[in-house]
């Protein structure tokens, strides 16, 4: 979302997608998760070991998607890379979601000046693009996934918080909330047990879309050499390493992870948008 939130789903659907597209994207996501879980058993070779006799190879029976300039098997790296490539965004979305829900519920429920101050602070956070915050975190805490994931969670938090805040303020005026309160339930209890389940689907939908953008941001970070470090396989890091192969006129080892990133982002976007439409009904 530091990069720009363009809603891909509705557009694809207007181009003739529809329910089939949604199901296909859901299938892609399921396949991604499965691949990430089973990667060590699925990968035909160890992608951290380079075969210097066979660098920048094309598609062959031995290397299904070729090798990079270090002779690493691209197919195996792609499978194992799915793990870090999905784990990072998952961390971002979980932290941003939990934080955003807490802040948004509190702000929307309390209203008044507390709400005003929190909203102002969130506005200020919007000035920090997520990728920039992730880069700053690397500068402070060193390369890797941990610090950037937390920093990006901070950058994504305002989006969730603002959504939850609006929904809470709206939900709070509904009769069932008053009914809970009249029965003597404490406000935090009502907010968490009564209000939260009603807004959870919308938050889930937003988090799904954000997952795609977080994946994109983290891939960019790894592409810059600041995220996941070799030899750990990661899509962004793969693209980073493949640059010399691109210059040598053998772009396959770059194209494969790029395609994986694009496919994942589109799938998360389509599924998230559809979930959002469903919960809006």
């Amino acid at each position, binding site marked *: 979302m530091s990069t720009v939130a*363009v809603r891909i789903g509705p557009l694809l659907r207007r*181009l003739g997608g529809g329910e089939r597209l949604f199901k296909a994207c859901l299938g892609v996501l399921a396949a991604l998760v499965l691949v990430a879980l089973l990667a060590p058993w699925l990968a035909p070779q160890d992608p951290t070991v380079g075969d210097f006799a066979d660098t920048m190879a094309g598609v062959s029976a031995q290397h299904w998607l070729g090798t990079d300039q270090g002779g690493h098997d691209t197919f195996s790296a792609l499978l194992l890379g799915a793990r870090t490539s999905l784990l990072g965004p998952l961390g971002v979305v979980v932290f941003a979601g939990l934080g955003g829900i807490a802040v948004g519920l509190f702000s929307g429920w309390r209203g008044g000046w507390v709400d005003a101050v929190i909203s102002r602070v969130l506005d*200020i956070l919007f000035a920090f693009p997520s*990728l920039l915050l992730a880069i700053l975190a690397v500068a402070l805490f060193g390369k890797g996934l941990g610090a950037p994931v937390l920093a990006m969670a901070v950058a994504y938090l305002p989006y969730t918080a603002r959504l939850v805040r609006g929904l809470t303020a709206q939900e709070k005026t509904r009769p069932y909330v008053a009914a809970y309160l009249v029965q003597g339930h404490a406000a935090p209890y009502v907010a968490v047990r009564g209000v939260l389940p009603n807004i959870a689907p919308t938050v889930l939908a937003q988090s799904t879309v954000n997952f795609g953008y977080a994946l994109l941001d983290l891939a960019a970070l790894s592409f810059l050499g600041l995220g996941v470090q070799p030899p750990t396989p990661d899509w962004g890091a793969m693209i980073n390493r493949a*640059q010399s192969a691109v210059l040598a006129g053998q772009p396959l080892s770059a194209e494969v992870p790029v395609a994986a990133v694009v496919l994942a982002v589109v799938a998360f976007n389509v599924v998230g948008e559809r979930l959002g439409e469903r919960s809006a009904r």
Partner: protein
Amino acid sequence: MSLALALLRRLAGTALTLLVTSFLVFSSLYLAPGDPVSFLVRGRSPNPAELAAIRRQFGFDQPFLLRYWHWLDAAAHGDFGRSYLFHENVAAVIGARLPASLLLVTVATVLIAVVGIGAGGLGALRRGSRTDGAVLLMVTVGAAIPSFAAAILLRSVFGVKLGWFPTIGNGSGLLDQLHHVLLPAVALSVTFMALVTRVTRSSMIDQLGREHVEVALSRGAPRLAVLRRHVLRNALGPIVTVSGLLVSGMLVSTAIVETAFGMSGIGSLLVQCVDQLDFQVVQALVLLVVAAFVLVNTAVDLLYPLIDPRVARKETR
């Protein structure tokens, strides 16, 4: 009177936002593990004189807020400390690389404006046609392609395979620079182009259906004039509103594009300084991007009444 008051209030809000963001950027140094001085000189062996200079600059014996105040005061005067990587003032290091990045962002902005508004407008005018389908396809594909992917693909096809454009460096002289900057600018603009196209298209579709457009046509105004004076003119609001997001997003993305194309600019500088532990430069660059976002948004807010006079009245109330 009340207009001046509204202006003053808006500017005060901007100043406050800048103050808070700069404070956050300043205090981020103290989040770093360990002692700030040794953090700043990590990986280098500074002589005692340099260490003393750092201590003097930051005034580590003073209270925190006072340190911030001195830092801010220096920053306001263009003094962002010293780069230990380049052995130069941070301002000079950034200043040397800023023009190249500004050229990149400017070319990308022109591309975004021309293609985004052009394609979006075309889609709106030919709504539902094959042309519109092509525009929507472009938006979808553009939005799904991250800038590093665009950079790799463009470099591979137009740089390596076809050899039309240089694959590395900044070039010298205006024409050569433009030649070097074109592919990076396209890579930088793809995502944002998709955004502007989509916003333009939906905003113009909204305006095309308005009655005042039919009224203008019913009074014999030429079609092209109606499109310009009523449809595009009224559709500008949402398009201009995204420009704050656009500017900060592009400045951050220069890191990706400049790195991918081996260009020298503030983006590649940011990556290099993170990589080689030159924190003061990183801090200054973060501040630059955030300030750009805040200032562009303020400018958009202040100029908005020119785009929609109805807003001016609401604010002065």
